[in-house]
């Protein structure tokens, strides 16, 4: 008797402990549920202002990307109407980093290649207006899941009442478990001799989703029931319903599970939940019962029948009127086409920069919004350019089944904003991200650092003659290193400008050794290289290995007048209340003397007019000044191009994943990708502000003698410190009146040609 009593007591105790345990699990997990919620990631909003380089077609495309629908803008936010050049847009309520903007109507005129007028609905001029930042994905996908977390005011009332009607009629009355519902379900199952009803409450479904596996055992059922009861004790009905709406599984997008009505709305209809009509909402509500069974893309008949059933029930319960029901039942499913803008390589960079710039604990909060500098237009241009060119190069290759790979990064050098990242030719498949992780010898991309080191000493100018002659070096390991020029030609004494433009190896090695390897490595590090390469002479020809991203960082300082802007993908992270998380601000530091960088940059523009990068400006508007450098590693294993206009810096790598020779120089492999990428973006000329202590002079490209365009067909403009003494071409007038204008103000050849014309 006593033993029995003790047994009962122990059993009771165990049950109590079990319940207490489940209670604590439920409370802790429910409150901590935010931990598993990834942050939404936004691309940069399209800025509109008079003069903005946005054509009507661009604007149309962007509005389409943002899922604005054609219609009377007076109908509400999310609608726009285009009449020729004029767009009337009813912009949605949008949270920006610095502002929560209420819906507003604007009128935009896009004439030719740019915005020509911008007004509010009442006709007042708007100096500047930005469209919604497009959502491009989310980060921290725990268990490969993804969410667009809804706040209470984002839940349409019809969804709230509709989901209760279809899934759990007594939700507002039961304590978490619905005994009546279970009895009714059992009765229905017995009558039908199979399971036709589940009898699970929304609370139980939520618990199941949160904490439990899918196995159907009695023990699990009991755990689920106890947890549901405890959850209801601790949290309100409204909180539980909201969590349910954010948690419920509604479909599968490849490897990504679609959870929550917010994401489902984007996934199936490509619009925010608030814009769904009755039929669309009914379809989502109907999907809860079986997202794969009723998958509207695979089984549209089933999905349609299910939707119509939900519509009928909503009408029977008077949640919608008969007209709305009839209209909903008559409408098509209205699905958006599958696919879309998925940018894994860019998100990869976002993840790394979040880790770099933010405290981990802050990032764990719920409902974060990450605002990035991604430019969807640049991203699309880079993806397209890489895919097309690799296809072409593969086809031209003699080896069958060749599969070249590549990477492209596009940045705005002034801000360090990274606007596009392509990590491979299959841009939309997550995998090895070459843009961030492929560390390869950079070949001649290193040379500008050698020439910059020379200019910084003050002993060299672009006109200084250096020796391109054979050289043999005894290395530390006892071997002999005898570099050669790519064309196996020896050029003799050449001006620095030409040695760089034609990427002469012998001249560069000799120059670098004169300057000292440590000095060259110092320059690289000042420019932003974070590793310190070994002091091997072959580094002068680019044996140093870098990722495309590292190359971008180094070239940013060259494209930015000697100022290093730390690369960034993330502009700001806002918490669910719109408050910014603490982060690092843009870092702008002088990396190299601006005057030396200016002289180097002028030499880099000669690369694209007279040197190995001559094809770079071909696809840009005529006269656009471009600076850049080709790079080819030994045996053509890596093909590189790094180049910049006044608007963008882009670095391209092309090669094989297994490091085989490609047979492609930088000019043949990477350069066309660069040119095609930049051709689809709108660039202004690279046209830095000349420092006051420099002046423009003409030299002969071939031999470096000072000359005039009238005198020499190969006259090129260079920048040198004021009053530099240059050896002159005999009989050529090199008075200051013939000084060339800074680049971009007038193509030098054109000027020479005009001169000949007027003479």
């Amino acid at each position, binding site marked *: 008797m006593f033993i029995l009593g003790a047994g009962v007591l122990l059993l009771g105790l165990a049950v109590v402990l079990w319940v207490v345990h489940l209670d604590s699990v439920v409370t802790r997990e429910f409150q901590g549920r935010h931990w598993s919620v990834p942050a939404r990631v936004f691309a940069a909003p399209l800025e509109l202002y008079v003069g903005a380089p946005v054509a009507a077609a661009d604007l149309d495309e962007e509005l389409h990307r943002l899922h604005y629908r054609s219609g009377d803008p007076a109908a509400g936010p999310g609608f726009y109407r285009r009449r020729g050049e004029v767009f009337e847009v009813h912009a949605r309520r949008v949270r920006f980093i610095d502002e929560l903007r209420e819906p507003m109507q604007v009128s935009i005129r896009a004439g030719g290649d740019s915005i020509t007028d911008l007004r509010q609905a009442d006709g007042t001029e708007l100096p*500047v207006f*930005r469209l919604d930042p497009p959502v491009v994905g989310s980060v921290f996908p725990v268990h490969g899941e993804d969410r667009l977390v809804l706040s209470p005011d984002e839940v349409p009332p019809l969804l709230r009442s509709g989901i209760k009607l279809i899934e759990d009629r007594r939700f507002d009355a039961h304590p978490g478990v619905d005994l009546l519902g279970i009895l009714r379900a059992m009765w229905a199952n017995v009558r039908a001799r199979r399971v036709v009803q589940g009898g699970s409450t929304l609370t139980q479904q939520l618990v199941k989703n949160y904490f439990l596996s899918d196995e159907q055992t009695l023990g699990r059922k009991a755990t689920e029931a106890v947890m549901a009861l405890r959850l209801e004790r601790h949290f309100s009905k409204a909180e539980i319903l909201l969590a349910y709406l954010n948690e419920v599984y509604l479909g599968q997008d490849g490897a990504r599970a679609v959870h929550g009505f917010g994401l489902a709305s984007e996934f199936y209809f490509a619009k925010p939940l608030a814009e769904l009509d009755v039929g669309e909402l009914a379809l989502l509500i109907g999907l809860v019962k079986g997202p794969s069974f009723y998958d509207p893309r695979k089984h549209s008949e089933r999905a349609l029948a299910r939707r119509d059933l939900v519509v009928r029930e909503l009408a029977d319960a008077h949640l919608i009127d008969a007209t709305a029901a009839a209209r909903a039942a008559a409408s098509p499913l209205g699905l958006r086409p599958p696919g879309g803008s998925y940018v894994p390589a860019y998100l990869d960079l976002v993840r790394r920069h979040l880790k770099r710039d933010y405290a981990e604990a802050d990032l764990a909060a719920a409902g974060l919004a990450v605002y990035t500098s991604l430019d969807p237009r640049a991203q699309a241009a880079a993806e397209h350019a890489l895919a097309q060119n690799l296809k072409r190069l593969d086809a031209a290759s003699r080896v069958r089944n060749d599969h070249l790979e590549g990477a492209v990064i596009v940045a705005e050098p002034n801000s360090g904003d990274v606007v596009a990242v392509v990590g491979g030719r299959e841009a939309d498949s997550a995998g090895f991200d070459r843009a961030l992780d492929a560390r390869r010898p950079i070949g001649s991309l290193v040379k500008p650092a050698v020439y910059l080191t020379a200019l910084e000493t003050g002993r060299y100018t672009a006109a200084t003659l250096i020796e391109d002659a054979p050289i043999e070096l005894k290395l530390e390991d006892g071997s002999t290193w005898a570099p050669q020029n790519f064309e196996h030609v020896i050029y003799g004494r050449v001006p620095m400008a030409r040695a760089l433009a034609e990427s002469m190896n012998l001249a560069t090695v000799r120059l670098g050794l004169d300057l000292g390897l440590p000095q060259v490595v110092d320059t690289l590090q000042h420019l932003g290289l974070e590793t310190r390469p070994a002091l091997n002479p072959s580094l002068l020809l680019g044996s140093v290995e870098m990722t495309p991203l590292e190359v971008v960082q180094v070239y940013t300082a060259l494209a930015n007048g000697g100022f290093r802007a730390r690369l960034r993908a993330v502009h700001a992270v806002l918490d669910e209340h719109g408050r910014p998380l603490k982060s690092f601000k843009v870092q702008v530091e002088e990396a190299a003397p601006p005057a030396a960088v200016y002289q180097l940059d002028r030499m880099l523009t000669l690369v694209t007019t*007279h040197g190995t990068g001559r094809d770079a400006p071909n696809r840009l508007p005529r006269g656009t000044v471009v600076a850049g450098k080709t790079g080819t590693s030994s045996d053509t294993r890596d093909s590189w191009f790094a180049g910049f206009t006044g608007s963008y810096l882009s670095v391209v790598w092309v090669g094989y994943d297994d490091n085989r020779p490609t047979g492609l120089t930088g000019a043949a492999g990477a350069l066309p990708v660069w040119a095609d990428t930049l051709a689809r973006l709108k660039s202004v000329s690279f046209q830095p502000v000349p420092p006051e202590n420099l002046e423009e002079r003409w030299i002969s490209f071939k031999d470096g003698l000072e000359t005039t365009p009238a005198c020499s*067909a190969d006259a090129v403009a260079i920048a040198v410190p004021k009053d530099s003494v240059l050896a002159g071409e005999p009989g050529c007038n090199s008075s200051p009146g013939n000084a060339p*204008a800074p680049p*971009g*103000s007038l*193509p030098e050849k054109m000027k020479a040609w005009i001169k000949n014309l007027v003479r």
Partner: protein
Amino acid sequence: MDQEPRALTAAAALAVLAGALLVSGCPAPAPRASSASAPMPAAPTASSPAPSSGSAPAVPTPAPRPAPPPRENHLSPATRSLVTQARTLMAHGDLDGASSTLDRALRIEPNNPLLWIERGRLRLAENDAHQAEGCGRKALALASGDRSTQHQAGRLLADALRAQQRNQEARAVETQPYMN
């Protein structure tokens, strides 16, 4: 190597010339608008075509100029309105908001030294003198040839150096010719 085609007609040459002048981005002086009520040193705020647009109409001037005329930097209507917004946010103590708004302006006109001066002033208000120094140096480099803007940039740079107790360097900046 690349020979300029001699067959260009004079008309085509003029068109190219006009285009070349367009991208030269030397801002045309325009009526000055005032924003002097702002709490920071007022920047010249006359309008000019945004340098990133490169497509505003211009009068073709075929005469090649031997030396560029003195530059004058301006804000476009778009960036001027953003600067005004940023200053308002700053006055209300929303430095983060002001910073983001200035970022917007800089994306539109990345090479405008006036915007770098605004950003530097903001960094000073945030007690980030090191970053303010970077902005000051950048502004100074971009202001080359524009005395008035050089003066403002030099002021910012000197203030940023002083805030870092680098008084000697600050004095060196203050004795530059453009500071008179």
